[in-house]
């Protein structure tokens, strides 16, 4: 006891701390499940990492927590990177955490969903923030890996459709440094005169594409002054970058198609415009010429006189025709009147009387006597002649045949 001396509590604690922190336990990755998580108002995170048999106190100070890709949840399976430490005031050992990663695909998806919801709530995916793409970009910034088929495919499609200036920036698109590299590329391209940025990466697993699901990348895309086309993975892969970007292309080649118009289509479009110009002008001038010649005809004195005489003659013709037809009408009416007067004369009883005939009427009814059967002996009759009436009595009657 004498030889070793006597520690104070503090001295002993420091000694333990020295052993723990200078040993081989630094930089340890530890797998476990989160429990008792508190996100303290100071910004530091306190939690317990546990497995079936043990528990480990953990603290993540806010300067490390800033780069966390997702928020911790109770029960979440994680891999934790940290160094052991001793909290001197309480004499307990704990893990000073520097990084936390989701453990397993399920947890990755959970982190993805978490960040997606968070950024959606903040409005980072809102169409209001989407910047329109220039129809005819002069320079396209391409951030992708210098190796691999992606760059080659994009350059080929761009060159075929519409050759423009390309500003390529080699970018790490997979692994630990990927997120940082992508952010740095986006910022560097924003200092150039590029009109569009294509952010590209070929297909891969969710872990391979993970950098494009990181919050720093999402924010760098959102903050970009230049519109960004995200072309990550295959058609079925959706990364957070795709949601934040101003346009999403299912593949890197498709991004090239979105970025520039097709030269052939453009050429046809211009040809059609030229055609429309010519046809329209031909019609326009044609209309003017025919209108002009119409006007010329109207005011030419000879033509005008001819037109006038034609009209005069026509009117004369009309007048003559009118006179003729009226005269003829009068004649017809007169003849018709004469004929009718003759007929009337022929049937008039006055005519018969003037020729010496008489009309016999039986009295008292004054009925016309046309046959001997109409009268009996001593009937009174009245005979009308041309100048008066004769009163008679029937003395006798005798049937005669005159014809």
């Amino acid at each position: 006891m004498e030889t070793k001396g006597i520690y104070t509590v503090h001295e002993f604690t420091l000694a333990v701390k020295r052993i723990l922190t200078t040993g081989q336990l630094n930089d340890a990755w530890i797998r476990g499940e989160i429990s008792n998580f508190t996100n303290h108002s100071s910004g530091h995170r306190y939690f317990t990492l546990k497995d079936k048999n043990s528990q480990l106190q953990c603290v993540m100070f806010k300067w490390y927590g800033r780069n966390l890709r997702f928020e911790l949840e109770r029960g979440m399976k994680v891999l934790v990177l940290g160094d052991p430490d001793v909290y001197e005031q309480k004499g307990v050992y704990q893990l000073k955490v520097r990084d936390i990663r989701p453990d397993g695909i399920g947890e990755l998806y959970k982190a993805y969903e978490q960040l997606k919801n968070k950024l959606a709530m903040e409005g980072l995916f809102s169409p209001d923030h989407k910047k329109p793409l220039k129809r005819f970009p002069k320079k396209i910034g391409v951030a992708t890996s210098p190796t691999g088929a992606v760059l080659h495919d994009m350059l080929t499609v761009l060159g075929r459709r519409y050759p423009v200036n390309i500003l390529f920036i080699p970018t790490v698109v997979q692994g630990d440094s990927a997120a940082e590299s992508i952010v740095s590329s986006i910022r560097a391209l924003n200092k150039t005169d590029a009109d569009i940025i294509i952010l590209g990466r070929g297909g891969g697993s969710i872990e391979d594409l993970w950098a494009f699901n990181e919050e720093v990348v999402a924010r760098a895309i959102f903050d970009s002054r230049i519109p960004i086309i995200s072309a990550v993975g295959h058609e079925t892969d959706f990364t957070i970058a795709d949601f934040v970007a101003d346009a999403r292309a299912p593949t890197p080649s498709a991004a090239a198609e979105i970025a520039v118009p097709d030269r052939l289509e453009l050429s046809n479009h211009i040809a059609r415009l030229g055609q429309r110009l010519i046809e329209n002008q031909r019609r326009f001038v044609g209309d003017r010429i025919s209108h002009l010649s119409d006007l010329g005809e109207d005011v030419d004195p000879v033509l005008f006189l001819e037109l006038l005489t034609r009209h005069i003659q026509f009117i004369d013709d009309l007048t003559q025709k009118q006179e003729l037809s009226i005269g003829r009408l009068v004649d017809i009416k007169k003849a018709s009147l004469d004929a009718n007067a003759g007929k009337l004369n022929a049937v008039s009883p006055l005519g018969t009387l003037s020729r010496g005939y008489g009309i016999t009427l039986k009295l008292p009814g004054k009925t016309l006597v046309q046959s001997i059967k109409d009268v009996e002996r001593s009937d009174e009759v009245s005979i009308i002649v041309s100048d008066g009436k004769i009163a008679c009595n029937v003395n006798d009657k005798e049937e005669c045949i005159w014809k």
Partner: protein
Amino acid sequence: MEMSFEESLKELEGIVDKLEKGQLSLDESLMLFEKGIKLVRECNTKIQCAQQKVEQLILENGGSRTEKFEMD
């Protein structure tokens, strides 16, 4: 200053539109027609002459420079 392809095409589209709407004097229409035909030629030349130039952006010492890039 020379117009960009985009500006030229936009102006050409505008001219065709204006001419087709009519209501122009003969002088105006002839002037626009002439300009339109010139623009068709210009646009065609521009897209025929377009060439791909690939540069690489290299970051260094907090700044950046560009150099010609050749695909392997």
